[in-house]
């Protein structure tokens, strides 16, 4: 079996064309990044606002817990059967799947942004106010940089969630690497199914590692202690 999977993966014909591996990887990343960016545009400002003002804290904690309990497969089918018939063309399966991906990506980013700002030391906030910074300046120059590690952790877990769900979304007709798994399962083509599974796992690992590197490089050295202890 291993040999047949290797043969499938190393067959050049499987890599090219509109339903080839390369095209599917690009599709998978397009859906995932688009959903992640939209989710981040909604969740980061909202999380920063809630963390900064303390308003709506109750909402975040409960919404995040509840969202985790909702099964993504069920949500995907519901969105597809509800929205699908009301739309036409490619949008009929792109919109429901995209919506579900965005909805699933929001909670982890929201809780990261909120917890990040919430966890900023009051002393740092007071010092900033003492230096004459206004509310929004404190947010931009102190709270945001301090919250960055947690915001990025939130984005990393959201991305993993989105990549996994985009795979499943092939059931409702979405492209991406999930096609190999779903189509392979449908016709009992084990080499294709297994190759798809391996490719998705590798993609998730690589993306997570890239995001981990981004996390390392954009977080202020003052927070990570990479410049060593500052002596006064």
């Amino acid at each position: 079996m291993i040999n047949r999977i290797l043969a499938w993966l190393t067959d050049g014909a499987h890599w090219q064309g509109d339903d080839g591996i390369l095209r599917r990887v690009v599709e998978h990343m397009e859906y995932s990044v688009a959903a992640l960016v939209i989710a981040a545009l909604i969740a980061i400002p909202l999380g920063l606002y809630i963390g900064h003002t303390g308003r709506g804290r109750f909402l975040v904690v409960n919404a995040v817990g509840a969202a985790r309990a909702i099964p993504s497969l069920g949500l995907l089918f519901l969105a597809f059967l509800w929205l699908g018939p009301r739309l036409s063309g490619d949008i009929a399966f792109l919109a429901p799947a995209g919506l579900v991906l965005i909805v699933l990506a929001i909670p982890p980013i929201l809780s990261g942004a909120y917890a990040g700002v919430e966890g900023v030391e009051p002393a740092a906030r007071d010092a900033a106010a003492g230096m004459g910074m206004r509310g929004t300046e404190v947010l931009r120059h102190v709270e945001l940089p301090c919250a960055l590690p947690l915001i990025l952790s939130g984005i990393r877990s959201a991305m993993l969630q989105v990549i996994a769900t985009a795979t499943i979304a092939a059931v409702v007709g979405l492209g991406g690497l999930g096609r190999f798994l779903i189509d392979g399962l449908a016709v009992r083509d084990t080499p294709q199914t297994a190759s798809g599974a391996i490719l998705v796992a590798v993609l998730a690992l690589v993306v997570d590692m890239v995001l981990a590197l981004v996390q390392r490089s954009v977080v202020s050295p003052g927070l990570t202690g990479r410049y060593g202890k500052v002596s006064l």
Partner: protein
Amino acid sequence: MTWLRGHFVDVLGLAGQHIYLAGVPLVLGLLIALPLGWLACRYKVLYPFLIIGTGLLYTIPSLALFIMLPLLLGTHVLDPTNVLIAMTIYTVALLVRTVADGLGAVPDEVNQSATAMGYKRGRRFVSVELPLAVPVISAGLRVAAVSNVSIVSVASLIGVPQLGSLFTDGFNRAFLDPIIVGVVACVLLALLFDVTILGVTRLATPWQRAGEASS
């Protein structure tokens, strides 16, 4: 609602299957994560390896893991064992860090006092360190339980029956009722797991309530 009335027994059977597939890995995962977490906490050199190693397992999308396991283990594709093992892997991945951090948060003075009172390492772990780490471990276990319930439903795509079968059934017939019942049942099940873990934690940490009555 009429659909649910006609299929109540089927839904209950699927829910039972779902509890089995999500619950057993929770217990197994905890039993495996305890020694691993202890190792990561006791030997700081091992900490990054164990945390990164288990973290990598967690990045594998569930459908991919469900498909790869039978090939690695030689089991049949429809064998529920694959799902049990996959869920155990996810549980361990989530819990090793929690266990290590929970044990690490036990104050040094407490450990020293226990040693001074004659506790040997093994007994100190079981009767002092582990109980004090219960609240942290329980928080991790709640996250694992809720996400297990959600992930198990994906197994319906590879043909292992549980509540997720209601999703595929409804989708294949373009019929919303079973899907809605399935989603609600999954959320209720997650709630049931959550409440159970909270209850057990409460029983296991009587000292947390000791102050309440007097204050």
